[in-house]
Each structure stands twice: as structure tokens, then as C-alpha cells.
């Protein structure tokens, strides 16, 4: 039992944390690994761009919030949206950092299989960052619609935001799935 736990712990450490074994420096050699690595780099690049857009939207959102009267009937909605935006902003930042960490380990992975797994983790985590950043942008779009009194847009954006939150949680769920499937691979 204890040995099993050590094996699983070791596998997880190899995959997600500091490597416990001496690793040889290598380039992402195999074509399949190279393809996943390139895809992960592109995903990180896209996520960075979306996080930057979300940052700009947040700065603008602060000004827009001041335009909404405190006695507006939509104020409770706005409070919930701000909370959702704040949570997703944190997710986007953390995931982008995680994606970059995983990508940095591809080059020093002990073999092609581990390198491929790091690249896959980086790609999917970048997806989590991207979707989180886009949820923030949609949330700020909603606030803009309320602040500028575009009442006909509010309902559409509200539904879009709810659906985006549901899809974004799917991205996060599948990232966790990828992590556990990779951990299971190394604990066999």
C-alpha cells in the first residue's frame, strides 16, 4: 500500500513537479512530440494575447462600473458578474503560469514520452488560461452593456456569459482529466 503511494507520488512528481531523477537535456526530437510542442507554444501565445486583452478590459471596466447607478435594479447581477470575472481572472493567470512551467520542462524531459506529456499539459493548461481570460472579457462586455444602457444586448450577453462559464468549466474539468490520465500512465 505504502509502496503504491510512493510509486504514484513519484509519477506525479516526475510529471508535474521537480524531477526526482537526473534528466538529460534533449530537444523535443520525435515528430509527434515536436508537433504537440509547437501546438502548445501556439496555445500559450494565444492565451497570453487573450490575458492581455482581459487586462485592458478590466481597466476599462473599473471606469464603466462608476457609470452604473447604485440603485440600478441590475446591481445584484453586476456584483455576481464581477465575482465571476475575478475568479476567472485568477484562473487565467495561474493557468498561464502553469502552462509556461510545463512547456519549460519539455526540453529537459528524460524521454520523448515525458516530453510529449509535458507539451500536452502545457497546451491544455493554456486553453484553461485562454477560456478564463475570455470569460473575463465577456463579463466586462456585460458590464459595458449595462453601463451604456444597451438593454437589448444585456439578455444575449447574459446568456452567452452563462454558457461560456459552463464551457470554461468543461475546459478545466478536461485539464484535470488529462493530468490524472497522465499520472495513471506512469503509475502502471
Amino acid at each position: 500500500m505504502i509502496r503504491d503511494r510512493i510509486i504514484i507520488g513519484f509519477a506525479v512528481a516526475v510529471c508535474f513537479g521537480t524531477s526526482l531523477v537526473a534528466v538529460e537535456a534533449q530537444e523535443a526530437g520525435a515528430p509527434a512530440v515536436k508537433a504537440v510542442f509547437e501546438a502548445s507554444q501556439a496555445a500559450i501565445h494565444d492565451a497570453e494575447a487573450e490575458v492581455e486583452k482581459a487586462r485592458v478590459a478590466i481597466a476599462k471596466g473599473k471606469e464603466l462600473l462608476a457609470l452604473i447607478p447604485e440603485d440600478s435594479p441590475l446591481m445584484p447581477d453586476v456584483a455576481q458578474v464581477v465575482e465571476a470575472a475575478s475568479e476567472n481572472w485568477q484562473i487565467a493567470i495561474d493557468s498561464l503560469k502553469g502552462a509556461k512551467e510545463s512547456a519549460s520542462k519539455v526540453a529537459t524531459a528524460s524521454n520523448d514520452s515525458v516530453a510529449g506529456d509535458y507539451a500536452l499539459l502545457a497546451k491544455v493548461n493554456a486553453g484553461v488560461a485562454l477560456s478564463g481570460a475570455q470569460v473575463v472579457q465577456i463579463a466586462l462586455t456585460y458590464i459595458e452593456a449595462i453601463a451604456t444602457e444597451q438593454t437589448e444586448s444585456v439578455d444575449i450577453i447574459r446568456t452567452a456569459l452563462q454558457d461560456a462559464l459552463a464551457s470554461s468549466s468543461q475546459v478545466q474539468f478536461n485539464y484535470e482529466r488529462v493530468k490524472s490520465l497522465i499520472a495513471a500512465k506512469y503509475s502502471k
Partner: protein
Amino acid sequence: MTKQTVKIFAASMVCAFCAAESLAAVPADAAGDLAAIATISVQAKANLSNAALGGNVDEITEAGKRSDAVDAAMAQGQDAYLSMERADQNGDQDAVASASEDLKSSLAKAVNALNGVIPDEIAQAVARQKKAPKNTGVKGRSYDVPNVYDVPWNSDRMRDFYQNHFANFWDSGIRPQDSETTPE
């Protein structure tokens, strides 16, 4: 143990290791594909909200159409993943490979739908989804469904999600029952 037996044992261990590795590698990639489709779905919603803010009716309609098509592709992808898991549990590698192809195809459809290329099959799936009776009890059952109208945001999709959950629970045959109190 003879030398021959040792060789056979070693060979079978290598085969088992290779099989296990290839078996595990498919679902990890597949879960990655599923995550990619969901990311595209979020992108479609962002496009829709931007269109809504712009106020151009044609753009809103087009963005809504693309968003629905991406969601239909996502539903197909989730079905394919489920099939893959079942096939994996049954050890049917051909079915795993076939479901993997279906999942890749769903990802391609989602990418295309986001760019406005919506295949007939997806358009029909969206039409079926829109035509399906909503919130009248899934599959026309006669029981009283719980009040799922008061979910946050009032989204049709979330409402259907909860209603389907309840329907699956009802289908399972498990019912909440009173348990006897522990005698004091």
C-alpha cells in the same frame, strides 16, 4: 523456471507495458481534444457577446448560429469520448480508435463552425436541439419535474443540464428513501 519461460515472461511483460502505454496515451490526448473543443465554445460565446454589444442584428444572428453549431460539435465530441471510455473498458481497441477518429472529427467541425463553415449534419443537429420540447419533462415523462426555472442566469442550457441530470437520476431507479431512525 526455464530459460524459455523467462524469455516468454519478459516478452509478455514488455507487450503488456507497451499495450498499457498506448491504451493510456489515447484518452489523455482525447481529453485534450475535448478541452480544445470547449475552449472553442468559449471563443464562440465571446464572439456572440461582442456582436451583441455592436448591435448589428445580422452579425448577432451569424454569431449565434456559429455558437450553436460549435455547441453541437461539442456534444458530438462528448459522445465520442464516452464511447471511447466504454470501448477502453471493454478492451475493444478498434472501437477506441474509431471513437478517437470521431472525436478528432468533432474538433475539426468545431473549428470550422467557429469560422462559419457549418456542415449540414451539424446544422441538422442544431435544428433538432431547437425543435426538441423544452422543460416539459425530458422524453415526455409524466412525473412532475422539479422546478429548475430558478437556476442562476436563467440560461436554457443550464436548465436543460439540470433537467437531464434529474431524468438520468430518475432512470437509474434509485429513489431517496426514509431510513429508519437509530433507536436511542
